[in-house]
């Protein structure tokens, strides 16, 4: 049923569909046009032994002014248990007693329910623009706040689906003809997660997990490989290819149980850093909607918050609220054969 609903939404977006043709996984320094509403549905999938971990998010974007864009994202996933693991300070994701157990000599992932994670409120302000013919250079500042409060059990913070907290950063984007380059760096300050367990335990056990603060550094490259030359037709399909490098370094977590600081004995809660590479492809439909797929692999270190490969899918569209419609395609039909009608 969920699958059908998603398919329907994807279909809806592809038929009706608008967008700045930019990166699948990172925000560009460009903003949403003033008065234009954008919608985006995102999904992230990866396999954790026998379990397919899924994350779905819906985003509404709006161009408040030509320079200021606001966004609200709501997300749900089966990434988290309802409670932190009992052996939190020692747990791993690849051994007995962690997120995996063995049955019939095969390692199996643990079932987690789908949990509504929360909302992410995002604002981006374009501070610098330098346009030229078929190129632009832009700088934007952004900040976001997340209300998420789930039993995320790793030190690495992530404000889309794992942690509450706030984040701020800068984006630098250069577009030139068929090429697009962007660099983003930001700092994440996650909120703590506190759980009070009373079941089978007396006195109640209050666990507070303080996640690590993190520095993100992302670099994206895009190239329009089709068409070579634009026909004067908005319905012409466009295809862009991307390679995005997503990097993060984060501090270690701190666990506190009933006022006693826990002794961290798992890399999942220690400080770390990594860089992942996401090759991706994007299909632009009606010069208005986009559908994209990226697949992520680690190239330096690795993240403990997901398994690899990571599949990211998204559809996005702009709504203009204009009574006047864009020009119909002006592509001419091929000439009739000389002997036509004879």
């Amino acid at each position: 049923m969920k699958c059908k609903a998603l398919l329907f939404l994807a279909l809806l977006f592809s038929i009706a569909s608008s967008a700045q043709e930019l990166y699948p996984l990172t925000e560009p320094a460009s903003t949403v046009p003033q008065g234009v509403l954008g919608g985006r549905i995102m999904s992230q999938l990866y396999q954790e032994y026998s379990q397919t971990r899924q994350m779905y998010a819906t985003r509404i974007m709006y161009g408040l002014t030509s320079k200021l864009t606001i966004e609200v994202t709501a997300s749900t996933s089966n990434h988290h248990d309802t409670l932190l693991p009992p052996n939190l300070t020692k747990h791993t994701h690849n051994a007995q007693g962690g997120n995996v157990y063995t049955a019939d000599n095969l390692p199996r992932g643990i079932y987690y329910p789908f949990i509504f994670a929360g909302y992410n409120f995002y604002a981006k302000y374009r501070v610098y623009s330098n346009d030229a013919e078929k190129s632009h250079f832009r700088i934007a500042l952004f900040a976001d706040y997340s209300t998420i409060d789930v039993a995320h059990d790793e030190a690495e913070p992530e404000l889309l689906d794992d942690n509450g907290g706030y984040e701020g950063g800068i984006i630098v984007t250069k577009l030139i003809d068929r090429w697009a380059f962007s660099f983003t760096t930001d700092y994440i300050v996650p909120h703590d997660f506190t759980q009070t367990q009373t079941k089978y335990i007396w006195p109640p056990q209050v666990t507070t997990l303080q996640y690590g603060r993190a520095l993100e550094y992302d670099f994206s490259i895009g190239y329009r490989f089709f068409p070579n030359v634009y026909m004067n037709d908005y319905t012409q399909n466009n295809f862009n290819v991307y390679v995005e490098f997503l990097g993060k370094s984060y501090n270690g977590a701190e666990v506190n149980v009933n006022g006693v600081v826990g002794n961290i004995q798992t890399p999942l809660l220690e400080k770390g850093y990594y860089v992942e590479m996401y090759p991706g492809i994007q299909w632009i439909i009606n010069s208005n909607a986009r559908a994209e797929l990226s697949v992520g692999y680690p190239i330096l270190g690795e993240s403990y918050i997901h398994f690899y490969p990571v599949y990211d899918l998204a559809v996005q569209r702009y709504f203009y609220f204009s009574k006047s419609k864009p020009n119909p395609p002006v592509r001419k039909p091929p000439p009739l054969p000389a002997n036509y009608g004879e």
Partner: protein
Amino acid sequence: MKRLIFLLITVALFLTANSNAQFVSVEIGVNGLTCSACTRSVEMSIRKLDFVADVQMDLENTQGTITFKPGSTVDIEKIAKAVVSAGFSVRFLNAVYKTDSTFQVSENYCMSYSGATYQFVKVTAGKMPGNITMKFIGKEFLPADEYKKWKDSLKAQCKDSKSTYFVTL
């Protein structure tokens, strides 16, 4: 109320301009465009203007032709603002102005049209035919480096210098 406004506008038109004189179309170049969706955003933003009849964008050359509704009051500045609100900037803006009669143009000649004044700069004096193409000179109509070249020669000399557009031929 709407009728009254319409009547007032019509009267204003007769008072300030030659009869039937008006901007009929604009050729606009847009900077910063590298994708078809961006071009579409610009088109949709321009289409929101009530005096615009049609927009035809040229995706490959990142420029477009805007035609106006006959008899409507055209506000050229709003076109430039529409491009900016879509997130882009104007590379050039050339407007076709049509009148029934010919008129004499000289350096700093002031032309009135629908409440705004158009001051001709760097032009050779002469008689103009009914149709002329005016190239708009201004911060909002040119890239920053090109505007710099013009900046010093732009001195408002028309009576109503509040809403003066500088144009050249």
